[in-house]
């Protein structure tokens, strides 16, 4: 069979890939490098619920521009729904309504936030009026009791906040706290309670609910904090420590005790948030697509997808590069690894754990499971039950590490849950078989080379430039495909074979 067919195919793929790439570059001026200076954030609230055939009214709080953050673009994806905007306690609400709703419903609210940075010379404001206390009866008594106890233990306003938070957690006032919290002991209710008690003390305080704007967010959720008016400005306070904080990158969405979502008629509303760091110029150019050709060209990108799906593809588009690297390491260099794609999958989970923690956790999981596996060997279990038992052990070890990591306050421990457990199980099994048949030296050597390949894949796959290029120009995947196909017909020596066969070259 001639290779010409393959060469033509690869050339064609490369041509299409590079052609689209150049076209997008020329027409839209999409940036070649990640724009680190961009301070635009895309936020999306995905509201899902089930309709039961009748009318549904569902509303949520809209984001508003404020001194540091500007909302520059908002959009709603709500097919068939009527939209009305209302104002309630200084917050805008958007209400989606529809006469007949049945089945799973998905509504999207998407907006772009421009972070203008902290304004050093903030204009001093006049003292606001203090929110009236709405508690009555036993709750008022409980709040007053906690305030009294906290006042005794504090000297000034900042220490009062710390004392109130301590009182809410203290055993002595546990019954008061229970009355105030009711059934929901969440940070959100805590924000309302603390701001309420402060209002009771005639201090201007309010609860704030918002989002932290970070790159590489797995599943963002609302964070809650407190604001106290002091010396002409609203100073944020942490609800955990009670200390004044400098809330880096926290975007306040709404203030005061308001439910984020209100619904009439539907069932089981769920809100999913996603935050992504905006590709500024890319987004701006999306709006500039004027004629059909340009629009079609822009369809070859991920920007039109919902944000949470975009996030998934951000991770997925780099996997082919990892796979290509693996092909190269195996077929051109000749490095052996456990399982064909195990290192790529490990590299992908290292994204969440960071490299150091990833390698450490991986080694611990494999190590402990391997010991159990060696013990299983003496039980003479049949294959499928043995693999199932091993999977359970792997998950137990992962769970143990997560709990231990959380107790010790190590963030890395939690993300161990993202390790591919089936891959880990098969890796343990393969290592133990190799251990039995070729000895520990071979097994450890193979394990280390797998880990080294995974680390290399991680370094390449998490490179900002790589992620940016493949995400903004997914057509480059065609070029990767072409290279992979060509490597598929590489029949030259592997680097390791040169070592293996070198004795053959010595003799004339």
């Amino acid at each position, binding site marked *: *069979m001639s290779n010409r067919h393959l060469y033509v195919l690869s050339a064609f793929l490369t041509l299409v890939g590079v052609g689209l790439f150049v076209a997008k570059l020329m027409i839209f001026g999409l940036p070649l490098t990640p724009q680190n200076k961009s301070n635009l954030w895309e936020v999306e609230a995905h509201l899902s619920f089930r309709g039961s055939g009748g009318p549904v009214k569902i509303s949520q709080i809209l984001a508003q521009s404020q001194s540091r953050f500007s909302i520059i673009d908002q959009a709603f994806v709500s097919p068939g729904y009527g939209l009305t905007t209302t104002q309630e306690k200084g917050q805008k609400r958007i209400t989606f309504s529809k006469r007949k709703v049945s089945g799973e419903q998905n509504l999207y609210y998407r907006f772009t936030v421009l972070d203008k940075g902290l304004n050093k010379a903030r204009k001093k404001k006049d003292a606001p009026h203090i929110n009236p206390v709405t508690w009555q009866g036993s709750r008022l008594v409980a709040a007053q009791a906690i305030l009294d106890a906290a006042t005794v233990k504090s000297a000034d306003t900042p220490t009062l906040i710390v004392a109130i938070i301590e009182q809410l957690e203290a055993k002595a006032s546990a019954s008061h706290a229970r009355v105030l919290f009711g059934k929901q002991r969440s940070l959100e209710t805590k924000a309302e309670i603390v701001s309420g008690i402060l209002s009771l003390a005639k201090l201007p305080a309010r609860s704030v609910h918002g989002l932290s704007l970070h790159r590489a967010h797995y599943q963002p959720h609302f964070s809650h904090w407190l604001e106290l008016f002091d010396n002409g400005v609203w100073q944020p306070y942490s609800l955990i420590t009670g200390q004044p904080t400098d809330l880096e990158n926290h975007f306040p969405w709404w203030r005061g005790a308001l439910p984020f979502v209100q619904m009439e008629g539907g069932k089981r509303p769920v809100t999913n948030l996603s935050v992504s760091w905006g590709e500024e110029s890319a987004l701006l150019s999306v709006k500039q697509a004027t004629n059909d050709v340009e629009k079609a060209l822009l369809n070859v990108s991920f920007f039109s997808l919902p944000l949470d799906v975009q996030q998934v593809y951000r991770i997925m588009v780099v996997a082919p590069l990892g796979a290509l690297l693996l092909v190269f390491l195996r*077929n051109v260099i*000749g490095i052996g690894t456990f399982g064909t794609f195990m290192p790529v999958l490990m590299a992908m989970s290292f994204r969440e754990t960071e490299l150091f923690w990833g390698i450490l956790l991986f080694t611990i999981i494999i190590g402990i499971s391997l010991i159990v596996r060696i013990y299983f060997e003496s039980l*003479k279990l*049949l*294959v*499928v039950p043995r693999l199932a038992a091993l999977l359970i052990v792997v998950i137990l070890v992962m769970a143990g590490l997560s709990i231990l990591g959380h107790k010790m306050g190590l963030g890395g421990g939690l993300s161990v849950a993202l390790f591919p457990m089936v891959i880990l199980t098969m890796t343990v099994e393969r290592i133990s078989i190799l251990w039995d*048949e*070729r000895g520990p030296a071979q097994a450890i050597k193979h394990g280390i080379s797998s880990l080294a390949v995974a680390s290399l894949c991680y370094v390449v796959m998490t490179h900002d430039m790589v992620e940016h290029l493949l995400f903004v120009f997914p057509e480059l995947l065609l070029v990767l495909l072409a290279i992979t196909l060509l490597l598929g*017909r*590489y*029949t*030259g*020596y*592997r680097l390791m*074979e*040169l070592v*293996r*066969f*070198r*004795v*053959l*070259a010595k*003799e004339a």
Partner: protein
Amino acid sequence: MLSLIRRLRQKGVLGLNARNGAYILPHNPRRLYPLVDDKLLTKKLAAKAGVAVPELYGVVETPHQTLDMLDKLKGFSDFVVKPAHGSGGDGILVVVGKTKRGYRLANGTLVTLGEIAFHINNTLSGIYSLGGQPDVALIEYRVKFDPVFEDITYNGVPDIRIIVFHGVPVMAMVRLPTRASSGKANLHQGAIGVGVDMSTGTTLKAVYKNDIIEEHPDTGNPVMGVAIPHWKRLLTIAASSLELTGLPYQGIDIVLDKELGPLVLELNARPGLGIQIANRTGLGNRLEKVTQKRQSLKSLDERVAFAQENFSAE
């Protein structure tokens, strides 16, 4: 490094990529693989073609047949249990004798019938098969190997691997078990590979763990210059393997039995490349010669003669 590559090329040394990309993928149709991957099927094919194989005592396909088989085995003092889909010599249990306390294995340990049953059940669940597929266990005649290799074998059955391309035997080696290979004849498990002169069937220098040696590491006897008996017959059996399976590129493993002569153990659609080091020459040039001449090499005798003429050690 480039000169190293050039010299290896000159010698026709085949790498894994070249073996797979230039010979196995273009020549060996995938549908024929089951014929060699399944040792039961290979045995049946060989028996049909009149090629001698170790006698099959029985096949265990389901766990409940194990007990019947054990009953039957009480009549034998020595036998071999092997997985039909095994690879690399894994999962083969060689029973050499019966004592009052149990069965003695080739490596000297004693096992009970229960342990043999456990081994069979493990085999059935696919522990030794490629990809963990459920398997069947074969129980067959234990080869009493020819004394020719007695002095250069440690605890196990030596066999002869011949690579056959389009029905022409191109390269051969004798694989000698060592202490390190625990009686197994696979190079990657630590067995010795000894090159063979294709025209005369006498052994050349040997390779042990990628190094060239002249004596057996355990027995200390020279491995070179041993004349393999029935050489012509071995070549003829190897050449006929093309008609057996239809695979143009394959490796055939043959053992020499004291009484029964050459017996075919198994066929291999992806034979390893260590044989090149054992023979201190590359496969590529020999395969190329066969490619050029294969139209004119029709009969079995022609192919054997071609091998003997062209592939003798220089």
